[in-house]
Protein backbone atom coordinates (compact mmCIF):
# COMPACT_ATOMS: atom_id res chain seq x y z
CA UNK A 1 0.00 0.00 0.00
CA UNK A 2 2.73 2.42 1.05
CA UNK A 3 4.84 1.42 -1.93
CA UNK A 4 1.95 2.37 -4.20
CA UNK A 5 1.52 5.76 -2.63
CA UNK A 6 5.28 6.34 -2.71
CA UNK A 7 5.16 5.67 -6.45
CA UNK A 8 2.31 8.12 -6.69
CA UNK A 9 4.31 10.78 -4.88
CA UNK A 10 7.27 10.21 -7.21
CA UNK A 11 4.81 10.52 -10.08
CA UNK A 12 3.49 13.78 -8.68
CA UNK A 13 7.03 15.05 -8.26
CA UNK A 14 7.77 14.25 -11.91
CA UNK A 15 4.58 16.07 -12.87
CA UNK A 16 5.80 19.16 -11.01
CA UNK A 17 9.12 18.93 -12.86
CA UNK A 18 7.50 18.60 -16.27
CA UNK A 19 5.21 21.49 -15.31
CA UNK A 20 8.27 23.62 -14.65
CA UNK A 21 9.63 22.75 -18.10
CA UNK A 22 6.27 23.74 -19.58
CA UNK A 23 6.42 27.12 -17.85
CA UNK A 24 9.53 28.23 -19.70
CA UNK A 25 7.88 27.05 -22.87
CA UNK A 26 4.41 28.63 -22.75
CA UNK A 27 5.39 31.69 -24.77
CA UNK A 28 6.65 29.40 -27.56
CA UNK A 29 3.58 27.17 -27.39
CA UNK A 30 1.30 30.17 -27.78
CA UNK A 31 3.16 31.79 -30.68
CA UNK A 32 3.51 28.43 -32.44
CA UNK A 33 -0.24 27.88 -32.00
CA UNK A 34 -0.78 31.34 -33.49
CA UNK A 35 0.85 30.09 -36.73
CA UNK A 36 -1.61 27.18 -36.75
CA UNK A 37 -4.62 29.42 -37.31
CA UNK A 38 -3.53 29.68 -40.97
CA UNK A 39 -1.23 26.65 -41.26
CA UNK A 40 -3.47 24.09 -39.56
CA UNK A 41 -3.80 22.67 -36.04
CA UNK A 42 -0.82 20.58 -34.90
CA UNK A 43 1.02 22.06 -37.88
CA UNK A 44 -1.02 19.95 -40.34
CA UNK A 45 -2.62 21.96 -43.11
CA UNK A 46 -6.08 21.00 -44.44
CA UNK A 47 -5.41 22.83 -47.70
CA UNK A 48 -2.98 21.91 -50.47
CA UNK A 49 -2.53 25.64 -51.08
CA UNK A 50 -1.15 26.30 -47.57
CA UNK A 51 2.00 24.56 -46.34
CA UNK A 52 1.84 22.61 -43.07
CA UNK A 53 4.57 23.18 -40.48
CA UNK A 54 4.73 19.85 -38.61
CA UNK A 55 8.05 18.04 -38.98
CA UNK A 56 9.67 20.88 -40.90
CA UNK A 57 13.45 20.79 -40.47
CA UNK A 58 14.51 23.54 -38.06
CA UNK A 59 17.07 25.03 -40.45
CA UNK A 60 14.49 25.20 -43.24
CA UNK A 61 12.04 27.03 -40.96
CA UNK A 62 14.76 29.45 -39.75
CA UNK A 63 15.94 30.27 -43.27
CA UNK A 64 12.40 30.80 -44.53
CA UNK A 65 11.50 33.16 -41.67
CA UNK A 66 14.67 35.21 -42.04
CA UNK A 67 14.19 35.48 -45.79
CA UNK A 68 10.53 36.47 -45.40
CA UNK A 69 11.55 39.13 -42.90
CA UNK A 70 14.33 40.56 -45.08
CA UNK A 71 12.18 40.37 -48.19
CA UNK A 72 14.67 38.06 -49.94
CA UNK A 73 11.88 35.53 -50.36
CA UNK A 74 8.82 36.70 -52.27
CA UNK A 75 5.59 36.25 -50.33
CA UNK A 76 2.07 37.58 -50.13
CA UNK A 77 1.65 37.89 -46.37
CA UNK A 78 4.62 36.34 -44.60
CA UNK A 79 6.86 39.41 -44.51
CA UNK A 80 4.24 41.13 -42.35
CA UNK A 81 4.15 38.21 -39.91
CA UNK A 82 7.87 37.35 -39.89
CA UNK A 83 8.81 40.95 -39.08
CA UNK A 84 6.88 40.69 -35.81
CA UNK A 85 9.08 38.04 -34.16
CA UNK A 86 12.62 37.88 -32.75
CA UNK A 87 15.35 35.46 -33.86
CA UNK A 88 15.09 33.74 -30.48
CA UNK A 89 11.38 33.19 -31.10
CA UNK A 90 12.09 31.83 -34.60
CA UNK A 91 14.59 29.35 -33.10
CA UNK A 92 12.15 28.23 -30.43
CA UNK A 93 9.34 27.82 -32.99
CA UNK A 94 11.69 25.98 -35.40
CA UNK A 95 12.53 23.44 -32.70
CA UNK A 96 8.86 23.12 -31.76
CA UNK A 97 7.62 22.46 -35.30
CA UNK A 98 10.55 20.14 -36.10
CA UNK A 99 9.50 17.97 -33.15
CA UNK A 100 5.81 17.85 -34.18
CA UNK A 101 4.98 14.61 -35.95
Amino acid at each position, binding site marked *: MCKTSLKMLVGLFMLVLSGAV*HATDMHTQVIAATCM*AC*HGPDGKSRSAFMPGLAGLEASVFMQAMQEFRSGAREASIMKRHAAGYTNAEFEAMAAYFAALK
Partner: protein
Amino acid sequence: MTTSRRDFLKISSAGAAFALTGCATRPGALAMTARAHVVVVGAGFGGATCAKYLRQWGPNIEVTLIEPNERFVSCPISNWVIGGLRTMDDITHRYDRLPRHGIKRVQDSVIGIDTDRRVVKTRNGASIAYDRLVLAPGIDIRTDTVRGYQEAEAAGKVVHAWKAGPQTALLRKQLEAMPDGGVFVISAPTAPYRCPPAPYERACLVASYFKRAKPRSKIILLDGNPDIASKKALFQSAWKELYAGMIDYRPNNAPFAVDGDRMIVSSDFEDVTGAVLNVVPRQRAGEVCNLAGARNDSSQAWCLVNLATFESTTVPYVHVIGDSVLSNLPKSGHTATSMAKITAGAIVELLAGRQPDPAPVLANTCYSAISDSRAGYIANVFRYEAGKGYVSQPEGGSTPTGDERNFKFAQAWARNIWADVLD
Protein backbone atom coordinates in the same frame (compact mmCIF):
# COMPACT_ATOMS: atom_id res chain seq x y z
CA MET B 1 -26.79 18.51 -11.70
CA THR B 2 -25.68 20.99 -9.06
CA THR B 3 -22.12 20.63 -7.81
CA SER B 4 -20.68 23.60 -5.99
CA ARG B 5 -16.99 24.31 -6.24
CA ARG B 6 -16.59 23.50 -2.55
CA ASP B 7 -18.31 20.12 -2.99
CA PHE B 8 -16.19 19.49 -6.05
CA LEU B 9 -13.00 20.10 -4.02
CA LYS B 10 -14.34 17.90 -1.22
CA ILE B 11 -15.05 15.04 -3.60
CA SER B 12 -11.64 15.34 -5.24
CA SER B 13 -9.88 15.48 -1.88
CA ALA B 14 -11.81 12.45 -0.68
CA GLY B 15 -10.72 10.57 -3.76
CA ALA B 16 -7.09 11.51 -3.21
CA ALA B 17 -7.25 10.55 0.49
CA PHE B 18 -8.68 7.17 -0.49
CA ALA B 19 -5.80 6.59 -2.88
CA LEU B 20 -3.30 7.28 -0.14
CA THR B 21 -4.99 5.08 2.49
CA GLY B 22 -2.56 3.54 4.95
CA CYS B 23 0.07 6.24 4.85
CA ALA B 24 0.37 9.63 6.44
CA THR B 25 -1.65 12.15 4.47
CA ARG B 26 0.24 14.88 2.65
CA PRO B 27 -1.78 18.08 2.39
CA GLY B 28 0.41 19.33 -0.45
CA ALA B 29 -0.20 16.25 -2.53
CA LEU B 30 -3.92 16.43 -1.85
CA ALA B 31 -4.20 20.00 -3.08
CA MET B 32 -2.47 19.06 -6.30
CA THR B 33 -4.87 16.28 -7.15
CA ALA B 34 -7.93 18.54 -6.91
CA ARG B 35 -8.65 19.32 -10.55
CA ALA B 36 -9.20 22.95 -11.37
CA HIS B 37 -12.34 23.70 -13.37
CA VAL B 38 -12.50 26.30 -16.13
CA VAL B 39 -15.89 27.19 -17.60
CA VAL B 40 -15.91 28.74 -21.08
CA VAL B 41 -19.09 30.50 -22.23
CA GLY B 42 -19.56 30.70 -26.00
CA ALA B 43 -18.19 28.27 -28.61
CA GLY B 44 -17.32 30.64 -31.42
CA PHE B 45 -13.82 31.37 -32.72
CA GLY B 46 -12.61 32.54 -29.29
CA GLY B 47 -14.40 30.21 -26.88
CA ALA B 48 -13.95 26.89 -28.69
CA THR B 49 -10.27 27.65 -29.32
CA CYS B 50 -9.70 28.56 -25.68
CA ALA B 51 -11.38 25.36 -24.45
CA LYS B 52 -9.30 23.25 -26.80
CA TYR B 53 -5.92 24.77 -25.94
CA LEU B 54 -6.71 24.78 -22.19
CA ARG B 55 -7.04 20.99 -22.42
CA GLN B 56 -3.97 20.67 -24.64
CA TRP B 57 -1.68 22.72 -22.40
CA GLY B 58 -3.34 21.90 -19.08
CA PRO B 59 -4.36 18.25 -19.34
CA ASN B 60 -5.22 18.23 -15.61
CA ILE B 61 -7.72 21.04 -16.00
CA GLU B 62 -11.39 20.20 -16.30
CA VAL B 63 -13.01 22.30 -19.05
CA THR B 64 -16.73 22.87 -19.59
CA LEU B 65 -17.85 24.70 -22.74
CA ILE B 66 -21.36 26.18 -22.65
CA GLU B 67 -22.98 27.15 -25.98
CA PRO B 68 -26.67 27.39 -26.87
CA ASN B 69 -26.31 26.69 -30.59
CA GLU B 70 -26.15 23.14 -31.91
CA ARG B 71 -23.70 24.07 -34.67
CA PHE B 72 -20.95 26.57 -35.39
CA VAL B 73 -21.77 29.04 -38.16
CA SER B 74 -18.78 31.07 -39.31
CA CYS B 75 -19.07 34.84 -39.70
CA PRO B 76 -15.89 34.88 -41.84
CA ILE B 77 -16.96 33.69 -45.33
CA SER B 78 -20.63 34.49 -44.53
CA ASN B 79 -20.41 37.47 -46.91
CA TRP B 80 -19.49 34.92 -49.59
CA VAL B 81 -22.84 33.22 -48.91
CA ILE B 82 -24.66 36.55 -49.21
CA GLY B 83 -22.86 37.14 -52.53
CA GLY B 84 -23.84 33.67 -53.78
CA LEU B 85 -20.29 32.23 -53.84
CA ARG B 86 -20.87 29.72 -51.02
CA THR B 87 -23.81 28.02 -49.29
CA MET B 88 -24.85 27.94 -45.63
CA ASP B 89 -23.57 24.34 -45.51
CA ASP B 90 -20.08 25.56 -46.38
CA ILE B 91 -19.91 27.82 -43.30
CA THR B 92 -21.79 25.53 -40.88
CA HIS B 93 -19.75 23.06 -38.84
CA ARG B 94 -20.45 20.48 -36.17
CA TYR B 95 -19.00 20.56 -32.66
CA ASP B 96 -18.64 16.77 -32.55
CA ARG B 97 -14.85 16.67 -32.59
CA LEU B 98 -14.32 18.89 -29.52
CA PRO B 99 -15.10 16.16 -26.93
CA ARG B 100 -12.02 14.26 -28.21
CA HIS B 101 -9.96 16.88 -26.39
CA GLY B 102 -11.69 16.07 -23.11
CA ILE B 103 -13.92 19.15 -23.27
CA LYS B 104 -17.34 18.76 -21.67
CA ARG B 105 -19.78 20.48 -24.02
CA VAL B 106 -23.07 21.72 -22.58
CA GLN B 107 -25.77 22.93 -24.98
CA ASP B 108 -27.41 25.57 -22.82
CA SER B 109 -27.54 29.32 -22.14
CA VAL B 110 -26.02 31.13 -19.17
CA ILE B 111 -28.67 33.21 -17.37
CA GLY B 112 -26.79 34.20 -14.20
CA ILE B 113 -23.24 34.51 -12.88
CA ASP B 114 -22.36 34.76 -9.18
CA THR B 115 -18.83 36.13 -9.30
CA ASP B 116 -18.42 35.97 -5.50
CA ARG B 117 -19.29 32.28 -5.18
CA ARG B 118 -17.92 31.63 -8.68
CA VAL B 119 -20.95 29.80 -10.05
CA VAL B 120 -22.76 30.15 -13.39
CA LYS B 121 -26.45 29.31 -13.69
CA THR B 122 -27.97 28.02 -16.91
CA ARG B 123 -31.42 28.17 -18.47
CA ASN B 124 -31.85 24.42 -18.01
CA GLY B 125 -31.30 24.79 -14.27
CA ALA B 126 -27.67 23.75 -13.84
CA SER B 127 -25.32 25.51 -11.42
CA ILE B 128 -21.76 25.08 -12.56
CA ALA B 129 -18.88 26.14 -10.31
CA TYR B 130 -15.64 27.49 -11.73
CA ASP B 131 -12.14 28.34 -10.63
CA ARG B 132 -11.78 30.58 -13.67
CA LEU B 133 -14.42 31.70 -16.14
CA VAL B 134 -13.82 32.65 -19.79
CA LEU B 135 -16.54 34.73 -21.47
CA ALA B 136 -16.56 34.61 -25.27
CA PRO B 137 -20.14 35.54 -26.21
CA GLY B 138 -19.41 37.73 -29.23
CA ILE B 139 -21.54 40.80 -29.70
CA ASP B 140 -25.05 41.94 -28.87
CA ILE B 141 -26.71 43.81 -31.74
CA ARG B 142 -28.41 46.90 -30.34
CA THR B 143 -31.60 46.75 -32.39
CA ASP B 144 -33.18 49.05 -29.79
CA THR B 145 -31.03 51.95 -31.04
CA VAL B 146 -32.77 52.15 -34.45
CA ARG B 147 -36.44 53.17 -34.33
CA GLY B 148 -38.77 50.63 -35.93
CA TYR B 149 -35.99 48.02 -36.21
CA GLN B 150 -37.38 45.33 -33.96
CA GLU B 151 -40.79 45.32 -35.69
CA ALA B 152 -39.20 45.30 -39.15
CA GLU B 153 -36.79 42.54 -38.10
CA ALA B 154 -39.58 40.41 -36.61
CA ALA B 155 -41.52 40.82 -39.87
CA GLY B 156 -38.48 39.60 -41.83
CA LYS B 157 -38.27 42.92 -43.70
CA VAL B 158 -34.94 44.19 -42.38
CA VAL B 159 -31.95 42.08 -41.31
CA HIS B 160 -28.45 42.78 -40.04
CA ALA B 161 -26.93 39.34 -40.83
CA TRP B 162 -24.08 40.37 -38.51
CA LYS B 163 -24.19 37.04 -36.68
CA ALA B 164 -23.91 34.27 -39.24
CA GLY B 165 -27.05 32.14 -39.19
CA PRO B 166 -30.68 32.37 -40.30
CA GLN B 167 -30.39 36.07 -41.20
CA THR B 168 -27.47 35.29 -43.52
CA ALA B 169 -29.68 32.85 -45.43
CA LEU B 170 -32.63 35.28 -45.39
CA LEU B 171 -30.57 38.16 -46.79
CA ARG B 172 -29.35 35.91 -49.59
CA LYS B 173 -32.95 34.94 -50.41
CA GLN B 174 -34.04 38.59 -50.45
CA LEU B 175 -31.23 39.46 -52.89
CA GLU B 176 -32.17 36.53 -55.13
CA ALA B 177 -35.82 37.61 -55.13
CA MET B 178 -35.00 41.26 -55.83
CA PRO B 179 -35.87 42.36 -59.38
CA ASP B 180 -33.11 43.65 -61.65
CA GLY B 181 -32.87 47.41 -61.21
CA GLY B 182 -33.58 47.27 -57.45
CA VAL B 183 -31.64 49.14 -54.79
CA PHE B 184 -29.79 47.30 -52.03
CA VAL B 185 -29.22 49.50 -48.95
CA ILE B 186 -26.55 48.45 -46.48
CA SER B 187 -25.54 50.46 -43.43
CA ALA B 188 -22.32 50.19 -41.42
CA PRO B 189 -22.49 50.99 -37.69
CA THR B 190 -20.33 53.56 -35.97
CA ALA B 191 -17.11 51.99 -34.63
CA PRO B 192 -16.38 49.96 -32.58
CA TYR B 193 -18.18 47.04 -34.22
CA ARG B 194 -17.50 43.43 -35.22
CA CYS B 195 -15.28 42.99 -38.29
CA PRO B 196 -14.52 46.54 -39.53
CA PRO B 197 -13.98 45.61 -43.23
CA ALA B 198 -17.15 43.50 -43.47
CA PRO B 199 -19.66 46.20 -44.62
CA TYR B 200 -17.37 47.12 -47.51
CA GLU B 201 -16.64 43.49 -48.40
CA ARG B 202 -20.39 42.83 -48.39
CA ALA B 203 -20.98 45.75 -50.75
CA CYS B 204 -18.31 44.29 -53.11
CA LEU B 205 -19.71 40.75 -53.10
CA VAL B 206 -23.31 41.89 -53.60
CA ALA B 207 -22.09 44.16 -56.44
CA SER B 208 -20.27 41.17 -57.92
CA TYR B 209 -23.53 39.19 -57.77
CA PHE B 210 -25.51 42.05 -59.33
CA LYS B 211 -22.95 42.30 -62.13
CA ARG B 212 -23.46 38.62 -62.90
CA ALA B 213 -27.24 38.41 -62.39
CA LYS B 214 -28.89 41.86 -62.07
CA PRO B 215 -26.71 44.40 -63.85
CA ARG B 216 -29.13 47.34 -63.60
CA SER B 217 -29.22 47.15 -59.77
CA LYS B 218 -27.52 49.60 -57.41
CA ILE B 219 -26.08 49.65 -53.89
CA ILE B 220 -26.27 52.49 -51.38
CA LEU B 221 -23.82 52.17 -48.48
CA LEU B 222 -24.75 54.38 -45.52
CA ASP B 223 -21.68 54.53 -43.28
CA GLY B 224 -21.93 55.67 -39.64
CA ASN B 225 -18.20 56.40 -39.83
CA PRO B 226 -16.51 59.42 -41.43
CA ASP B 227 -14.59 57.21 -43.87
CA ILE B 228 -14.04 53.59 -44.93
CA ALA B 229 -13.02 52.04 -41.59
CA SER B 230 -10.66 49.31 -42.85
CA LYS B 231 -8.68 48.34 -45.99
CA LYS B 232 -9.66 51.64 -47.58
CA ALA B 233 -7.34 51.41 -50.60
CA LEU B 234 -8.47 47.84 -51.36
CA PHE B 235 -12.17 48.70 -51.36
CA GLN B 236 -11.79 52.01 -53.15
CA SER B 237 -9.84 50.37 -55.96
CA ALA B 238 -12.45 47.60 -56.24
CA TRP B 239 -15.37 50.04 -56.34
CA LYS B 240 -13.64 52.10 -58.99
CA GLU B 241 -12.30 49.34 -61.22
CA LEU B 242 -14.86 46.55 -60.84
CA TYR B 243 -18.09 48.30 -59.85
CA ALA B 244 -17.97 51.78 -61.37
CA GLY B 245 -21.32 53.52 -60.93
CA MET B 246 -22.80 50.67 -58.89
CA ILE B 247 -21.90 51.60 -55.29
CA ASP B 248 -23.03 54.92 -53.88
CA TYR B 249 -20.95 55.49 -50.72
CA ARG B 250 -22.33 57.99 -48.17
CA PRO B 251 -20.14 58.53 -45.06
CA ASN B 252 -21.28 60.09 -41.74
CA ASN B 253 -24.73 58.70 -42.38
CA ALA B 254 -25.89 56.37 -39.60
CA PRO B 255 -29.59 55.38 -39.81
CA PHE B 256 -31.71 56.18 -36.76
CA ALA B 257 -34.98 54.68 -38.05
CA VAL B 258 -36.30 52.04 -40.45
CA ASP B 259 -39.80 51.53 -41.82
CA GLY B 260 -40.26 47.90 -42.86
CA ASP B 261 -43.69 48.51 -44.43
CA ARG B 262 -42.54 51.30 -46.72
CA MET B 263 -38.96 49.98 -46.97
CA ILE B 264 -37.37 53.27 -45.95
CA VAL B 265 -34.15 53.88 -44.00
CA SER B 266 -33.82 57.31 -42.34
CA SER B 267 -30.64 59.10 -41.32
CA ASP B 268 -30.14 62.68 -40.12
CA PHE B 269 -29.68 63.74 -43.74
CA GLU B 270 -32.09 61.75 -45.85
CA ASP B 271 -34.70 59.03 -46.32
CA VAL B 272 -33.49 56.22 -48.55
CA THR B 273 -35.84 53.70 -50.17
CA GLY B 274 -34.57 50.24 -51.09
CA ALA B 275 -35.81 46.85 -52.30
CA VAL B 276 -33.55 45.05 -49.79
CA LEU B 277 -32.59 46.74 -46.50
CA ASN B 278 -29.54 45.48 -44.61
CA VAL B 279 -29.27 47.85 -41.65
CA VAL B 280 -26.55 46.92 -39.14
CA PRO B 281 -27.13 48.59 -35.74
CA ARG B 282 -24.52 49.52 -33.16
CA GLN B 283 -23.16 46.76 -30.97
CA ARG B 284 -21.88 45.97 -27.49
CA ALA B 285 -20.29 43.10 -25.58
CA GLY B 286 -22.50 40.03 -25.26
CA GLU B 287 -25.09 39.92 -22.48
CA VAL B 288 -23.20 37.32 -20.38
CA CYS B 289 -20.48 39.94 -19.86
CA ASN B 290 -23.16 42.11 -18.29
CA LEU B 291 -24.29 39.21 -16.09
CA ALA B 292 -20.73 39.04 -14.72
CA GLY B 293 -20.51 42.82 -14.24
CA ALA B 294 -17.67 42.85 -16.77
CA ARG B 295 -19.18 45.38 -19.23
CA ASN B 296 -17.07 47.94 -17.45
CA ASP B 297 -15.89 50.63 -19.86
CA SER B 298 -17.19 54.21 -19.45
CA SER B 299 -20.09 53.55 -21.83
CA GLN B 300 -20.93 50.22 -20.10
CA ALA B 301 -20.95 48.66 -23.56
CA TRP B 302 -17.58 46.86 -23.75
CA CYS B 303 -15.16 45.00 -21.50
CA LEU B 304 -11.83 46.28 -20.24
CA VAL B 305 -9.31 43.56 -19.47
CA ASN B 306 -5.71 43.11 -18.38
CA LEU B 307 -4.37 42.53 -21.89
CA ALA B 308 -1.62 40.10 -20.83
CA THR B 309 -4.13 37.61 -19.36
CA PHE B 310 -7.51 38.92 -20.61
CA GLU B 311 -8.77 38.88 -17.01
CA SER B 312 -11.36 41.59 -16.39
CA THR B 313 -9.91 44.74 -14.84
CA THR B 314 -12.74 44.74 -12.30
CA VAL B 315 -14.04 41.17 -11.88
CA PRO B 316 -11.46 38.68 -10.60
CA TYR B 317 -11.30 35.14 -12.06
CA VAL B 318 -13.35 36.27 -15.09
CA HIS B 319 -11.56 36.49 -18.46
CA VAL B 320 -13.15 38.07 -21.54
CA ILE B 321 -11.98 37.35 -25.10
CA GLY B 322 -13.10 38.11 -28.65
CA ASP B 323 -15.29 40.93 -29.92
CA SER B 324 -16.50 41.89 -26.42
CA VAL B 325 -13.08 43.30 -25.49
CA LEU B 326 -12.43 47.01 -25.89
CA SER B 327 -8.82 47.57 -27.03
CA ASN B 328 -6.83 48.57 -30.09
CA LEU B 329 -7.01 44.95 -31.30
CA PRO B 330 -9.27 44.32 -34.30
CA LYS B 331 -12.63 42.68 -33.67
CA SER B 332 -12.02 39.68 -35.96
CA GLY B 333 -12.47 35.92 -35.68
CA HIS B 334 -8.75 35.45 -36.12
CA THR B 335 -7.93 37.89 -33.31
CA ALA B 336 -10.41 36.05 -31.09
CA THR B 337 -8.45 32.81 -31.63
CA SER B 338 -5.18 34.58 -30.80
CA MET B 339 -6.69 36.06 -27.61
CA ALA B 340 -8.00 32.58 -26.78
CA LYS B 341 -4.53 31.04 -27.00
CA ILE B 342 -2.90 33.74 -24.85
CA THR B 343 -5.72 33.36 -22.31
CA ALA B 344 -5.47 29.55 -22.27
CA GLY B 345 -1.72 29.83 -21.66
CA ALA B 346 -2.20 32.43 -18.91
CA ILE B 347 -4.88 30.36 -17.14
CA VAL B 348 -2.74 27.20 -17.24
CA GLU B 349 0.09 29.15 -15.60
CA LEU B 350 -2.14 30.87 -13.02
CA LEU B 351 -3.83 27.62 -11.97
CA ALA B 352 -0.40 26.05 -11.49
CA GLY B 353 0.68 28.97 -9.31
CA ARG B 354 3.11 30.27 -11.93
CA GLN B 355 3.51 33.71 -13.45
CA PRO B 356 1.77 34.12 -16.82
CA ASP B 357 3.84 35.27 -19.81
CA PRO B 358 4.43 39.00 -19.18
CA ALA B 359 5.00 39.74 -22.90
CA PRO B 360 2.54 37.77 -25.05
CA VAL B 361 2.48 38.12 -28.84
CA LEU B 362 -0.72 38.12 -30.89
CA ALA B 363 -1.36 37.94 -34.63
CA ASN B 364 -4.29 38.85 -36.85
CA THR B 365 -4.88 37.88 -40.47
CA CYS B 366 -8.08 38.96 -42.17
CA TYR B 367 -8.93 38.41 -45.82
CA SER B 368 -11.67 40.30 -47.65
CA ALA B 369 -12.98 39.16 -51.02
CA ILE B 370 -13.71 41.93 -53.51
CA SER B 371 -15.17 39.69 -56.23
CA ASP B 372 -15.78 36.02 -57.07
CA SER B 373 -12.06 35.54 -57.78
CA ARG B 374 -10.06 38.25 -56.01
CA ALA B 375 -9.25 39.12 -52.40
CA GLY B 376 -6.94 41.27 -50.30
CA TYR B 377 -5.89 41.10 -46.66
CA ILE B 378 -4.79 42.97 -43.56
CA ALA B 379 -2.18 41.31 -41.32
CA ASN B 380 -0.54 42.48 -38.11
CA VAL B 381 1.60 41.14 -35.29
CA PHE B 382 1.01 42.85 -31.92
CA ARG B 383 3.51 42.58 -29.06
CA TYR B 384 2.34 43.31 -25.53
CA GLU B 385 4.38 45.84 -23.60
CA ALA B 386 3.58 46.64 -19.97
CA GLY B 387 2.13 50.13 -19.73
CA LYS B 388 1.56 50.37 -23.49
CA GLY B 389 -0.72 47.44 -24.29
CA TYR B 390 -0.43 45.76 -27.70
CA VAL B 391 2.02 47.50 -30.00
CA SER B 392 1.48 46.88 -33.72
CA GLN B 393 4.74 45.81 -35.36
CA PRO B 394 6.13 47.93 -38.21
CA GLU B 395 5.54 45.68 -41.27
CA GLY B 396 1.85 45.15 -40.50
CA GLY B 397 -0.73 46.45 -42.95
CA SER B 398 -3.06 45.69 -45.81
CA THR B 399 -2.90 45.07 -49.54
CA PRO B 400 -3.90 48.07 -51.69
CA THR B 401 -5.49 45.83 -54.34
CA GLY B 402 -7.04 42.37 -54.51
CA ASP B 403 -5.74 39.43 -56.52
CA GLU B 404 -6.43 35.79 -57.35
CA ARG B 405 -3.63 34.40 -55.19
CA ASN B 406 -5.07 35.98 -52.05
CA PHE B 407 -8.53 34.68 -52.98
CA LYS B 408 -7.03 31.17 -52.83
CA PHE B 409 -5.22 31.97 -49.58
CA ALA B 410 -8.49 33.22 -48.09
CA GLN B 411 -10.08 29.82 -48.73
CA ALA B 412 -7.08 27.97 -47.29
CA TRP B 413 -7.15 30.30 -44.26
CA ALA B 414 -10.82 29.46 -43.65
CA ARG B 415 -10.31 25.70 -43.85
CA ASN B 416 -7.36 25.77 -41.47
CA ILE B 417 -8.75 28.19 -38.91
CA TRP B 418 -12.05 26.27 -38.77
CA ALA B 419 -9.98 23.15 -38.10
CA ASP B 420 -7.91 24.98 -35.48
CA VAL B 421 -11.10 26.05 -33.68
CA LEU B 422 -13.13 22.83 -33.97
CA ASP B 423 -10.94 19.79 -34.78
